């Protein structure tokens, strides 16, 4: 080790505290980088796992490969593993209700294929011999054929042919063209398990056969097999060429034809097709898995994630460079005399530069490995936390993946960060002129004009206040780093916390705004009609309302609208000329909601009306929120009454009966009296409407709605989860129900959103905390060193008679001054950011009003002053312990 390097080591040891703090800064920054990279690779690994689980763990499948070919593939060096499956053929299934899917498609899988081809058992076990078989779940749900584990089935398995051609799973069942199964053999199987339906690459949506899987006992004796292969890394790198080689086609043409980004005219396509020639087998790529596995940033999800990673990494590096640079700066300033001395005895610029980099290297050697360890650990913990919070939101579990690439990434970026940080200091150190350095005169360059303090400072705070105020101005550059660190942390913290609050407020507002927790969207039919009562009577259902929509058109004149409304919609109620110049009557369209009788009764009673009297009448919800843009284009919403109609008025018009297959656009007449005008809404109906609505009771079902209307059922249940399951069961058991239905569990939605946002806030707060900590290491180093550098000054002040109390007060004032300065800049920036976030996220919506993030501001103020006070106290303690004389003397040497 050279003398210079030994000197550096000694200096690092001498300034142990600062070295440790700097190393902590490096650890934090490398840990963040590692965690970010590890999370990214873990996400990638999770997606790969998910794909393997969903689609199967293979890259290509080749169909109808002869035994000879199978052996060839086995020999292929670019193939990592291969699974052999054999197609036995189709067998007609008795009792299947789906007329387009009448067959069982029987396959035999070898052991590897069973393990790797994404078989998800819902019941039972995998087959262990050729007499055992797996059936898919959709045989029951889609085909209506319920077979149980343990039962035995006999299948007449054979080749499916039509008009002389052999058909496979890619030929849908066509009811028009007759087909048959020939060369059948009788097979008897014991059902040993039920599995989920295969992904579409294996069983496409139009496939005519349910895939049954049995066991392939001897893969070497199969004459013709379907083979699934995984390529080696080598083979995957250029997977199109690998495939072309296997298919024995023209490589260039195959790549051109199947490669990404190429746009062809039809002729060109045909030309390439011809050039490629006849492939040896039919090949199907498991392309998503290939993209995921072949490139790091192959797929769009990962690409989006990667851009987020890039932004985060830039933030980390900028913050870290900023902070770590500062500690190098400090170290160099302290050693300026030493470097000058070294230069004066003949150290070259290069040697001195090297020496600074050596220091960086030592710090890196300490910080980077520890940073990587903690980063990997943090990523591991974060993934567990993520699974805890959003495990049931994703279809798959996030898995932690230890990736050397991630570590390499962090190491490289860590080193880059360090080099960037050390570079300027190294240059500065090498440029130090010997004499200037020894006299240490280059460091303090101040002009009297620049240092001024207002008179009041001295008046209020005394000479101590003046000195501390001036000090801030003197070391502007040094304190700038501190102030900027604090400003960044404070403003980002305020912005983030208002983002998080806004997210949670939104959920709360959405959830609190509703008085139901289950929403069932469905299309009505006779069968559901019967089941409604069953749903109504489920245990735990407190309130139940069935709502259907339609609208009535009626002739209206201006007098029926309020003046306010006419101001916004001046055309309302006025007759107009059509394109042929003929006068047309103005027709007003009014929403009508039909709610079930029981709910209607409850509703009118809550409006203090007598049900018997208003049974046949309607309730007019007349309060509307009208959107409008003023002259400057500013958007606003005004609350107003739409109609000037009153209780007792009648609405006479026509209702269009949609969705009636027999009578398209048939209409029905409606003549109804308004029982009351109100703004109280029945359950499930939103309070904010853009147009008025008429609520009528169940007696109108048959009159203004046909039997296949679309409708919503809103339920307020004591146990939303349980009721949800029960309703789903009811629908599952309605085998002939051909309409759609959709069930929203609002509690569940809110809960999921809540956990999602909680997770996001953990990530965001975690991130800002670590960034803040990096900032703290910087602030700590700046303040303690500044204090240290001013030791002699302090000693002088004491020697001319400054008491301890006065001294402490002076230091406190100094911290107060620049704490204030940072906050005065940081808080407004944070508020502006938080308002921008609010504006972007909640723009235009009236649900939540903007509120200043007061809690975050208070937390920032307290945290900043606490932090600065603690660090100052620490440095003062050290200075106060020093003997005045010793200090003055030491410096004089």
């Amino acid at each position, binding site marked *: 080790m050279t003398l210079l390097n030994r000197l550096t080591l000694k200096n690092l040891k001498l300034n142990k505290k600062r070295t440790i703090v700097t190393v902590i800064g490096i650890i934090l920054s490398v840990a963040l980088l590692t965690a970010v990279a590890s999370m990214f690779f873990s996400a990638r690994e999770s997606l790969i796992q998910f794909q393997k689980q969903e689609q199967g763990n293979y890259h290509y499948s080749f169909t109808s490969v002869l035994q000879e070919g199978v052996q060839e593939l086995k020999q292929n060096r670019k193939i990592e593993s291969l699974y052999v499956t054999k197609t036995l053929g189709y067998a007609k299934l008795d009792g299947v209700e789906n007329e387009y899917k009448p067959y069982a498609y029987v396959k035999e899988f070898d052991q590897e294929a069973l393990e790797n081809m994404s078989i998800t058992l819902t019941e039972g076990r995998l087959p262990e011999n050729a007499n055992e078989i797996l059936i898919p779940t959709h045989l029951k749900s889609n085909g209506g054929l319920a077979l149980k584990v343990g039962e035995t089935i006999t299948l007449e398995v054979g080749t499916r042919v039509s008009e002389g051609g052999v058909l496979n799973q890619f030929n849908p069942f066509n009811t028009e063209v007759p087909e048959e199964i020939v060369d059948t053999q009788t097979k008897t199987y014991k059902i040993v398990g039920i599995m989920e339906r295969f992904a579409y690459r294996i069983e496409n949506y139009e496939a005519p056969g349910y895939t049954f899987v049995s066991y392939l006992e001897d893969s070497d004796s199969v004459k013709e097999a379907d083979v699934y292969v995984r390529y080696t890394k080598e083979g995957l790198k250029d997977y199109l060429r690998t495939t072309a080689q296997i298919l024995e086609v023209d490589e260039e043409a195959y790549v051109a034809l199947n490669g990404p980004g190429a746009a062809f005219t039809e002729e060109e396509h045909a030309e390439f097709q011809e050039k490629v020639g006849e492939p040896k087998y039919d090949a199907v790529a498991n392309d998503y898995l290939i993209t995921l596995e072949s490139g790091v940033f192959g797929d769009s999800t990962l690409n989006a994630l990667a851009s987020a990673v890039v932004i985060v990494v830039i933030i980390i590096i900028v913050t870290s460079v900023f902070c770590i640079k500062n500690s190098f700066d400090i170290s160099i300033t302290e050693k300026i005399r030493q470097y000058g001395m070294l230069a004066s005895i003949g150290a070259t610029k290069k040697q001195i530069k090297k020496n600074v980099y050596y220091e960086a290297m030592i710090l890196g050697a300490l910080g980077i490995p520890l940073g990587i360890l903690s980063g990997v650990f943090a990523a591991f913990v974060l993934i567990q936390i993520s699974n805890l919070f959003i495990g049931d939101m994703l279809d798959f579990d996030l898995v932690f993946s230890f990736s050397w690439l991630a570590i390499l990434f962090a190491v490289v970026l860590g080193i880059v960060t360090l080099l960037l940080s050390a570079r300027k200091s190294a240059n500065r150190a090498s440029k130090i002129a010997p004499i200037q350095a020894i006299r240490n*005169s280059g460091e*303090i*360059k*101040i*002009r*009297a004009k620049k*240092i001024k303090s207002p008179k009041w400072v*001295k008046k209020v705070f*005394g*000479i101590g206040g*003046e*000195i501390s105020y*001036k*000090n801030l*101005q*003197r070391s502007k550059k040094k304190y700038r780093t501190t102030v900027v660190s604090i400003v960044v942390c404070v403003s980002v913290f305020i912005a983030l916390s208002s983002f998080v609050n806004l997210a949670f407020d939104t959920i709360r507002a959405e959830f609190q705004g509703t008085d139901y927790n289950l929403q069932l969207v469905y299309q009505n039919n006779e069968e559901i009609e019967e089941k409604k009562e069953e749903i109504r009577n489920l245990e735990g259902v407190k309130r139940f309302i069935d709502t259907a929509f339609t609208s009535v058109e009626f002739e209206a004149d201006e007098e029926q609208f309020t003046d306010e409304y006419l101001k916004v919609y001046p055309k309302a109620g006025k007759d107009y000329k059509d394109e042929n110049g003929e006068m047309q009557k103005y027709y007003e369209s009014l929403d009508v909601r039909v709610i079930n009788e029981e709910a209607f009764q409850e509703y009118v009673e809550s409006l203090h009306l007598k049900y018997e009297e208003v049974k046949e009448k309607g309730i007019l919800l007349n309060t509307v929120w009208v959107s409008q843009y003023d002259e400057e284009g500013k958007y606003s919403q005004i609350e107003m009454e739409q109609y000037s109609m009153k209780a007792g008025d009648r609405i006479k018009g026509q209702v269009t009966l949609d969705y009636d297959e027999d009578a398209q656009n048939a209409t029905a007449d409606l003549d109804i009296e308004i029982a009351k005008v109100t703004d109280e809404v029945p359950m499930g109906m939103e309070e904010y409407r853009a147009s008025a609505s008429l609520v009528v009771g169940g007696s109108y079902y048959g009159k203004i709605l046909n039997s296949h209307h679309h409708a919503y059922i809103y339920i307020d249940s004591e146990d939303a989860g349980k009721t949800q399951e029960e309703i789903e069961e009811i629908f599952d058991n309605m085998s002939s129900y051909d309409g759609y239905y959709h069930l929203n569990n609002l509690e569940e939605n809110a809960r999921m959103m809540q956990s999602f946002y909680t997770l996001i806030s953990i990530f965001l707060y975690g991130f800002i905390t670590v960034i803040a900590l990096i900032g703290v290491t910087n602030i700590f180093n700046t303040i303690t060193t500044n204090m240290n550098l001013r030791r*002699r*000054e302090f*000693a*002088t*002040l*004491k*020697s*001319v*008679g*400054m*008491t*301890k*109390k*006065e001294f402490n007060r002076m230091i406190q004032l100094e911290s107060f001054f620049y704490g204030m300065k940072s906050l005065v800049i940081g808080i407004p920036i944070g508020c502006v950011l938080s308002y921008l976030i609010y504006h972007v996220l909640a723009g235009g919506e009236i649900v939540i009003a903007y509120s200043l993030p007061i809690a975050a501001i208070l937390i920032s103020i307290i945290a900043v002053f606490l932090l600065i006070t603690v660090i100052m106290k620490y440095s003062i303690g050290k200075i106060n312990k020093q*003997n*005045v*004389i010793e200090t*003055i*003397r030491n*410096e*004089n040497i």
Partner: protein
Amino acid sequence: MEILKVENLTKIYGKDSTEVVALDHVSFSVQKGEFVAIVGASGSGKSTLLHLIGGVDRPTEGKVYIDGKDIFEFDDDKLAIFRRRQVGLIYQFYNLIPILNVEENITLPLSLDNREVGEEKLNELLKTLGMESRRTHLPNELSGGQQQRTSIGRALITNPSIILADEPTGNLDSKASDEIVELLKKSNWDYNQTIIMITHDMEIAKYADRILKLEDGRIVGE
């Protein structure tokens, strides 16, 4: 009138094997208006003596009376206040506060005491120091001699009982050195200011009324 009395002053640094006796039972007294030089080789204990007299360090044994008061009876804060009123310190390296200008540095002890600065007195002092044209300069805009003159001004502003100068010329060339000693001598004459100056330069010491020679922590001659 006796302004300073040093009795049996002893200072021992370190303990046991590393024990260094910097001052060994030194006793002497100084009359008001005297200009005393203390000379001695480095390590003879002269700086220690000065710092003890200035009350910035505490002795192992012995007493220092300034104006009849035992200064080590005071606690640290009282001592600090006593120091800013009664003692003026001048250092080899000036030890000015870099962010305060000449005028502010000079008036610092008064400011610490929250006392008003007499404009007349300040002007007179600046004139004496020859620093009138530099009153708003910062220390790093001054030459070494000018900085030292500023620190003398700082020592004089409070009309202290005693001025202690620690190698005030140690860092200056001979011309500047002469100017500084002349200045000290002048203040000694004009204000009847008591001055104790440490130096290893016999030429400089000759300006003093009285020379104390220190060797191995003891006074070996006058």
